[in-house]
């Protein structure tokens, strides 16, 4: 089975690694901005697809699949992964789509439809959140809504097209804003209202099915550490979750999975409110960024399970064979500038060295010299650690992030370290709004500043000494010293 990976970055490399281990040849595609991106070399073939938005172009991807003779297409996450028309086109072309059936993607892509299905399957759904907002708001509409309320795009996902209205006066404006963004992003301006759940936790359940009636769950993930609705740290098991609630989550996810006769990997997202009630939010019908934490505690390679199913297999695991060991945490290392409101940063990686050692995993797409572009997202690497319990995993993550060396572009490493040691994180008592109030220290601190000052002065001094004409009898700017000479040490 030759697999075309219709994605880029770390997830493309992640998928190609498993392909290689299973003996499946893989095919990479790359856009103009990615012509020297690392995922091209992790595959057995690589096909240029032109402009930067080509990862979103079903026709271009299908052409590449045809050209390479691929038998299957893995969409990864983002891009075409939740595009039902693409999945349908892949299957129409006689290829295997590594993911849910197209109709499942379609149903889950419409957030209103997915809620209706969930409600029918007996899942708890937030009141009113399965109806669209009418084009013209009837008189009194805004007054009948319970505030604060979120305005969400029906075709949305990944945190886009969401607005918060705190009062009737704000509602109309926020609906307009959400419609505009939704229209631009998804070409569909349908929006709906979802009551804001205060002090909510975002907890999701991983499911795996074979489309032949068998669905199992692979545990939950706690994903409440979010900034601008983007997850930053994820973990499993969810800290402090009562066993009865965990079982309720699993049962709900399984009910929905079975009602959909779910195929491949999927994630059922819930909100957990402060009273301990769960509320279905949506289904992500694809592999998630944070899937490695599930792999660490279950010992499963989720991409491998996807590939086995895609190659025609049935679900080979029974629910009772799934066991959970210890705790796993993932931290997303992003190219962003903490001093400028965490804006995405660009540049080039001038040096890097990833952490290693016991129970540390890094999924990345990085190399020294790599340009960091803003054409795609700002994820540089995912650091995933395992520990026999949550405390051990937190300590290990701090150690690993301290080891991670990246130069040339600002990152969130220092931010993540502070977050990991913050009391609310350590105690596991945080909500989705935690990062709105969490204020990291940006100042490097007097000790580090002094150390940096000494290093810089010595650096400038060496630079100066080596550029002086009388040094070694010849002009030799330090930057141009040959490799071997640079390696002498001191």
């Amino acid at each position, binding site marked *: 089975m030759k697999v075309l990976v219709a994605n880029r970055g770390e997830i493309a490399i992640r998928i190609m690694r498993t392909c290689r281990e299973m003996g499946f040849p893989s095919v990479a595609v790359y856009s103009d901005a990615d012509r020297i991106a690392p995922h091209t070399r992790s595959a057995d073939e690589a096909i240029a697809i032109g402009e930067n938005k080509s990862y979103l172009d079903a026709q271009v991807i299908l052409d590449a699949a045809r050209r390479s003779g691929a038998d299957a297409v893995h969409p990864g996450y983002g891009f075409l992964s939740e595009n039902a028309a693409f999945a349908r086109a892949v299957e129409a072309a006689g290829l295997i789509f590594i993911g849910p059936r197209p109709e499942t993607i379609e149903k889950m892509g419409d957030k209103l439809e997915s809620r209706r299905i969930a409600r029918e399957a007996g899942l708890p759904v937030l009141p009113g959140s399965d109806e669209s907002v009418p084009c013209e708001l009837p008189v009194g509409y805004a007054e009948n809504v319970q505030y604060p309320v979120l305005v969400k795009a029906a075709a949305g996902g990944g*945190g*886009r097209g969401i607005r918060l209205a705190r009062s009737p006066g704000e509602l109309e404006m926020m609906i307009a804003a959400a419609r505009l*963004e939704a229209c*631009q992003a998804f070409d569909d301006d349908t929006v709906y209202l979802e009551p804001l759940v205060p002090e909510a936790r975002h907890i999701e359940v991983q499911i795996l099915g074979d489309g032949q009636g068998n669905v199992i769950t692979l545990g939950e993930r706690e994903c409440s550490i979010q900034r*601008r609705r*983007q997850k930053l740290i994820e973990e499993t098991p969810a800290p402090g979750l009562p066993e009865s609630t965990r079982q309720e989550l699993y049962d709900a996810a399984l009910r929905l999975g079975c009602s959909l006769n779910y195929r491949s990997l999927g994630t059922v997202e819930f909100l957990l409110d402060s009273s301990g009630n769960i509320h279905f939010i949506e289904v992500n019908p694809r592999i998630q960024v944070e899937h490695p934490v599930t792999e660490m505690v279950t010992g499963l390679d989720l991409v491998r399970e996807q590939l086995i199913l895609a190659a025609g297999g049935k679900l080979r695991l029974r629910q009772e064979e799934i066991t959970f060991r210890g705790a796993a945490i993932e931290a997303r290392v992003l190219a962003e*500038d903490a001093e*400028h*409101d965490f*804006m*995405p*940063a*660009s540049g080039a990686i*001038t*040096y890097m060295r990833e952490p290693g050692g016991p129970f540390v995993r890094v999924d990345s797409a990085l190399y*020294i010299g790599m340009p960091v572009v*803003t054409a*795609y*997202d*700002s994820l540089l690497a995912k650091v995933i650690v395992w520990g026999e319990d949550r405390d051990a995993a937190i300590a290990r993550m701090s150690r690993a*992030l*301290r080891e*991670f*060396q*990246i*130069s*040339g572009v*600002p*990152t969130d*490493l*220092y931010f*993540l*370290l502070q977050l990991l040691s913050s009391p609310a994180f350590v105690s596991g008592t945080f909500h989705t709004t935690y990062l709105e109030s969490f204020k990291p220290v940006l*100042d*490097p601190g007097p000790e*580090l*500043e*002094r*150390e*940096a*000052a*000494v*290093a*810089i*002065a*010595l*650096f*400038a*001094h*060496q*630079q*100066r000494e080596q550029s002086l004409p009388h040094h070694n009898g010849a002009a030799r700017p330090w*930057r141009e*010293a040959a*490799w071997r000479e*640079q*390696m*002498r*040490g*001191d």
Partner: protein
Amino acid sequence: MNYNVTIGNNQYQVKIINNRVVVNGVPVTSRLIRLNGNGLYILRHEQRDVEVHLQEQASGSIEVVIGAQRVVAKVEAPNRREPRRREAQQAGTVLAPMPGLVLEVHVSEGEEVQQGQVLAVLESMKMQMQMRAPIAGRVTRVAARPTTQVDKGALLVQID
């Protein structure tokens, strides 16, 4: 040799004579040992080694990475070429705070704007950002064009 290192609002006077290093009048025993051609060094103190990455930037500033922390600093020294200074940013200058795509431009040259009014919308990665007027005034220049890519620090709109 005296080096003036500026990190944020703080100044450090570092005097280096042969192997003696004095920081703000306090002598320290520190050596810098080059490890490779990628800017990796050991900063070796009396009984402690710290790995540091040092890289001169195009602006002449020096980037220092120590563990998870990153500092960009300026250094002044005798005979050192001065870094090109960026013109002081003025109150009415709206620059791109991140590299990205200009999605929308809502003002034209000559238009009067209120403080806080949305001038343009920028998109970078998955985020959209509204660029608002920092002051009230008249738009004297609109450099941003919709659907064009801009670098971080690029002029978008000038208000006088």
